[in-house]
């Protein structure tokens, strides 16, 4: 797959738009996942994906084939998402206290729980709200996107120690926030 991908990228570097279309079709879902997990909003994530791929088209000459393509792509997507986070005013949340007990009472098996984009988006926004942007980025990449520390390092350009420290603080804040809600529900 890597060699096929590299061939496609070479064609794109020569200005082949059909090759670029193939790349978009293959990677737009992954890019959307990350944008959505950072923004918690369908439409905003969609805009970020669109902007990011246009950026990829414009900057494809700067892509180094030694670098993992998805890491390079996630770097562009996360930068765009951070810009968007700065620009938009977050919308008021829905009643998250209602959403969490529903989620928790649905059973042990997480696959039983069906949540629409909108509800998951709200959850993401609640748990990441107020986090410093660096912590939010690292938490999203590591815990929500499920990337390895090495990949997070490539995307953010941060040292491993810094990644661990930011992740620790992000998790702590999020856990405290969720515990407060869960404790309130128990009482």
């Amino acid at each position: 797959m890597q060699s096929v991908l590299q061939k496609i990228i070479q064609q794109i570097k020569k200005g082949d738009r059909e090759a670029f279309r193939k790349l978009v079709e293959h990677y737009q879902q992954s890019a959307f996942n990350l944008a959505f997990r950072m923004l918690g909003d369908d439409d905003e994530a969609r805009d970020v994906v669109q902007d990011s791929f246009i950026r990829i088209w414009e900057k494809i000459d700067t892509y180094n084939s030694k670098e993992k393509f998805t890491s390079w792509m996630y770097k562009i997507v996360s930068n765009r998402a951070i810009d968007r986070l700065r620009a938009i005013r977050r919308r008021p949340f829905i009643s998250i206290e209602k959403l969490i007990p529903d989620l928790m009472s649905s059973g042990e098996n997480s696959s039983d729980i069906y949540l629409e984009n909108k509800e998951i988006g709200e959850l993401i926004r609640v748990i990441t709200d107020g986090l410093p942007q660096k912590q939010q980025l690292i938490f999203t990449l590591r815990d929500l996107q499920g990337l390895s520390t090495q990949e997070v390092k490539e995307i953010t350009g941060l040292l491993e120690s810094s990644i661990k420290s930011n992740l620790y603080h992000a998790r702590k804040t999020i856990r405290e926030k969720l515990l407060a809600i869960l404790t309130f529900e128990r009482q």
Partner: protein
Amino acid sequence: MIMNCETARLNIDQYFDEKIREMDLELSQHLKNCDDCNNYYDDCKKAGELVTHIRDFEPALSDPTNLTGDIMMGIEARSAKSEHDKKIIPFYVFQNVTFRRLLSAAAVILFFVFGYEQYLVLDKINCLEIQYQKVSESRNNMYNSWETSTLKKYNYIITNNKELIKKINSMGNNVLLLKIASGYQDNNKFVPEELYRDLYTQKECSSLIKKFIEGRELLPKQK
């Protein structure tokens, strides 16, 4: 040694953060005897499950074909804009040091060339006005102070500058002598010799004018 609640909670955090498979025996014993920490453990577990739910949930991308189409249209629009921008001198050209130096040099040259030309015109208008003043003042002294060589020097400008011609013409009768002295002719209508044709022959008149222009003789009075 019995584990206290603070240490137990730190261990619980670590247990979930680092996804440790087997719980520490000491922590396990503490949880059996401490309801608060046991609740904390349950809540941490639920919080962790919640994050796992989010991670495992793949957000549905509605109408992916449409998104691909939008992206392709976006790059078409950018390419068209890029082609348009190529026709305009890009800003980075102005940031080029060599280009800026050339531009500065050209500006300095243009300043000197046009500035000097402008200076010449203004200076000659000024000189001419001074000279005219001398003509006026010297009329009572039979034009003794005429500087015909100076007047001739301005002849070039007079005959090649519309603004000056207009100015000279507006000076009135007194400038007539100045015109003669400088050899100035107004659209060939003015012929100095005509002034004296009743007194002198054409040859004599020409000679007088010539001597006058050269500053050797004064002009005789008109009849």
